């Protein structure tokens, strides 16, 4: 989107359009009012001194009998003009101060930065008052006073923005290429920060309009016989009991004009700045619905995926026809599987296949506007769809542990690690503070954290990444977990630490017969930990097979393609890496047939039209493919592309 298009986009939002109209009106008034009503505003009428508001004088008259309403209209020009002058001065000085560090180099630049930092700590009004002392009361003194008062804040903003841009690669490249500092500033830095600066200058104009009104109100700004809104307001306030309109009308004028500048600035900031993802996911229909899963009406039979060993007595987790939707998009489209006690199952798939959402849905952690539906969702024999919230909280709090991908961000940064673990025992086991903390230390020890007692008193940022992930597992062990759901637990860790964490998971599993649901995009990790693998594609399970069969017994073309894309020691390094051609299906518009068909070398018309069901093969596996087991024609002969 070009910048012009974005600025035009500002006008299309209701707030932006209203603000622009308001600002246009103020500007028009500033130009026209003195021409049209200049005479009436200065017309002295000693017969009607200090008259209250009437049909003749809408806002009454002042101590010389002049009509206050017209004086307010005419004062628009002075008020806006002076505010814009002060803003221009402030922005100019601010830009100069803000870009000076770039021009002067690091040493002198640091001095300027420090000076600006100190100046910015003082409120603008205090600076303006101080400068007003130097420049004297009156409009010619107030303009530089306000201008210089807003300069530090603007300088600070310019510095920050310029510093972020100056750190980028293209600026560094320009520097290395020998481009001079001034040129780097003008050509590379300023154009990239112009938009936010412009937005802030607009808001600064609103600010200086209000500040100017303030100074004039105090008697330090515009002096008689000239007048602006602030001065009129100050005069009107003295007689507020006799004629409130004399104070209120100029006040309203100041607010409207200030609002016009600020709202235009805010609307522009919204249009110029990046949008948040949450703003685009809207769903009015589910707004008031609780995020608890509800059994769907009747799903078409071919959409349902049934739990394979549903009848088994040792089933810990039974999922049938699980769906997760965000508005009209359904990233998880009917997933079903069963987890036995102590079993480790991996879910693999590309990013966007719905594997993480499946895990979060099972853990009941999908937040609005997300919506979870399932025909069956049972954990440890309890129906999660029908358990009352309180009981469900207790059940999941003690028996289900979660390990998330990024240990850096999964701990509360301002709470000590021990507290964060102890909280679980306090909440669900009824422990008091002391015993809860003792258990936390014990659990940290159990996950092999050296110096557990000391570590428990530390904050998360004092832990290394691997240690945090182990502490996270320790947090899960505060209760008596029967299932650990680990969502990409090792992706953010380096290889050696990854091995430790996986070994720990395996130990925990072996020690207490805990089931593990491991979400990963790394087939190697899954092979190392799991008994069984669920392969997901476009929100469905496409294959379910024992891990021993993964390497040579995979039946779905997608599973085989995934395996083919994993480089190993025998991979010919002179050849480009193998990739799966095409793009993953768009979750907003899933195809009617098999989602993998567009990328599948075996696909035919039937595949594109009819979605294959996940069928049990009688030997502990399931596959959803019309052409399962058929060998691919010269499967994925090394495709050019940037492999992963």
């Amino acid at each position, binding site marked *: 989107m070009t910048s012009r298009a974005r600025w035009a986009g500002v006008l299309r939002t209701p707030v932006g359009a209203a603000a622009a109209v308001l600002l246009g009106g103020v500007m028009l008034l500033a130009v026209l009012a003195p021409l049209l009503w200049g005479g009436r505003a200065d017309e002295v009428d000693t017969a009607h001194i200090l008259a209250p508001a009437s049909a003749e004088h809408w806002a009454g008259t002042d101590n010389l009998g002049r009509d206050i309403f017209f004086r307010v209209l005419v004062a628009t020009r002075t008020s806006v003009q002076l505010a814009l002058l002060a803003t221009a001065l402030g922005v100019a000085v601010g830009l100069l101060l803000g870009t000076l560090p770039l021009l002067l180099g690091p040493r002198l630049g640091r001095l300027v930065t420090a000076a600006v930092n100190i100046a910015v700590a003082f409120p603008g*009004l205090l600076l303006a008052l101080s400068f007003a*002392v130097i420049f004297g009361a009156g409009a010619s003194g107030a303009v530089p006073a306000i201008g210089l008062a807003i300069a530090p804040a603007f300088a600070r*903003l310019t510095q920050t923005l310029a510093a972020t841009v100056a750190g980028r690669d293209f600026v560094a490249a320009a520097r290395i290429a020998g481009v001079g500092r001034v040129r780097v500033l003008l050509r590379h830095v300023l154009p990239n920060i112009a938009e936010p600066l412009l937005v802030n200058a607009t808001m600064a104009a609103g600010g200086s309009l209000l500040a100017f009104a303030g100074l004039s109100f105090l008697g330090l700004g515009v002096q008689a016989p000239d007048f602006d809104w602030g001065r009129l307001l100050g005069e009107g306030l003295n007689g507020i009991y006799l004629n409130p309109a004399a104070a209120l009308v100029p006040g309203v004028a100041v607010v409207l004009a200030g609002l016009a500048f600020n709202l235009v600035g805010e609307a522009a900031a919204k249009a110029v700045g990046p949008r948040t993802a949450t703003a685009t996911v809207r769903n009015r229909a589910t707004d008031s619905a609780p995020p608890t899963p509800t059994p769907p009406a009747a799903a078409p039979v071919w959409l349902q995926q049934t739990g394979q060993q549903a009848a088994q007595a040792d089933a810990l987790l039974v999922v049938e026809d699980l769906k997760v939707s965000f508005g009209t998009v359904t990233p998880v489209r009917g997933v079903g599987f069963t987890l036995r006690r102590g079993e480790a199952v991996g879910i693999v798939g590309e990013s966007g296949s719905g594997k993480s959402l499946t895990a979060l849905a099972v853990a009941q952690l999908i937040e609005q506007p997300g919506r979870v539906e399932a025909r069956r969702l049972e954990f440890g024999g309890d129906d999660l769809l029908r358990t009352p919230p309180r009981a469900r909280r207790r059940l999941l709090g003690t028996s289900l542990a979660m390990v998330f991908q*990024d240990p850096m*961000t999964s701990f509360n940064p301002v709470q000590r690690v021990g507290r964060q673990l102890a909280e679980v025992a306090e909440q669900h086991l009824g422990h008091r503070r002391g015993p809860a903390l003792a258990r936390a230390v014990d659990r940290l020890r159990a996950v092999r954290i050296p110096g557990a007692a*000391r570590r428990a008193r530390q904050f998360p940022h004092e832990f290394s990444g691997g240690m945090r992930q182990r502490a996270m597992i320790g947090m899960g062990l505060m209760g008596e977990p029967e299932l650990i759901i680990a969502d990409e637990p090792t992706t953010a860790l380096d290889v050696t630490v990854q091995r430790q964490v996986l070994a720990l998971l395996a130990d925990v599993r072996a020690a207490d017969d805990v089931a593990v649901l491991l979400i990963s995009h790394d087939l190697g990790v899954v092979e190392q930990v799991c008994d069984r693998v669920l392969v997901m594609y476009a929100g469905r399970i496409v294959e379910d097979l024992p891990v021993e069969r993964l390497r040579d017994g995979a039946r779905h073309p997608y599973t085989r393609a995934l395996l083919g894309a994993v480089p190993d020691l025998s991979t010919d390094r002179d050849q480009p890496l193998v990739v799966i051609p095409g793009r993953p299906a768009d979750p907003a518009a899933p195809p009617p047939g098999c989602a993998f068909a567009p990328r599948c070398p075996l696909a035919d018309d039937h595949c594109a039209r009819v979605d294959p069901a996940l069928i049990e093969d009688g030997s502990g596996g399931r596959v959803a493919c019309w052409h399962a087991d058929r060998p691919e024609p010269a499967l994925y002969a090394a495709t050019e592309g940037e492999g992963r």
Partner: protein
Amino acid sequence: MVRADRVDRVALCGRTKTGCRAGGQDLITEPDDVTEAMPVTSTTTSAPGFASVLGNPWARFAARRLGRLLVSVWVLVTGAFLMIHLIPGDPVRAALGNTAPVELVEARREALGLNDPLWQQYADYLRHLVGGDFGTSMLSGMPVSQVIGDRLPATAELAVLAFALAVLVSIPLGLAMAVLTRGGRRRPVELAFTSGSVLLAVVPEFLVAVGLVYVFSVELGWAPVAMRQGAASYVLPVLALAVGPASILARIVRVETLAVLQAEYIRTARAKRLPDRRVYLRHALPNALTATITVGGLLLGGMVAGTVLAENVFAWPGLGSTIVGSILAKDYPVVQGVVLVYGLGVLLVNLVVDVALALLDPRSTIRES
């Protein structure tokens, strides 16, 4: 770099949320390398090890913060000193008027020490300040310290009350709004809150004051229109001063809480199946507050200066009316003294804000070391 990150984040956050997030992210990951080497390898016994780990960053923080305060005070004092010398022409002549006899002006210049070399005036000024001597009013002949002593309590009361009100209203309000409107719930509430708070934030305190006077004093007659007499007279000035900052702060609290609610550690807290109340108050609020204080801290300092306008509306017998009268009357020693007091007040508030931040967010104490 002199403690730039707080202001950095202010500037960035004022503009876009993502900039602020990205900045915060960097800060979170950064200390890992630093600390990984430090405490992990320490093999000291548990108790003194704990003390040294905790003690070091705090001592460093105190030293750094104190250094910055001293530099700021020095800049403030020097600025106040230079203020008079930057006035074009002769300040004494300007103060006494064109008709004043030359001898009087000369005598006054001599008394104020304005005929001494600049460095000596500066040295005298500093020496007097240390001794609590702020100079003498050119008009009334009263010591400036006495003027300040008479007027400061009224201003301080106003500022402290407004400060407390703004904080006490904005935090629960912002948190409640964030919880109510998270994830796109209750759009009408969100719209009402954001537009209402934008409007209140734009209206400057002196206009709020005028509006309040009109409604509550003129129309309803509930509150006295001006002066400081009895508890009722505090209501309108404090309200006028607190409304704007409170609404801005509430907005910041809401935005920061919404951002925090997206954080992964909140998902962790939910995964622990804590009750909602605990998730919001124990896990979300402290984190949202640190971000709020970083962004909104300067706002509270601004309230100190905001008293000037509010006092002038309500004829409040504080420093605010004094400074305006003195500027108009060109009574420069008084102006100098009052500016110093205001400046010190702002620095004090900023110090309190930084200490609060350090207490709330353990990372902030080591961030820059």
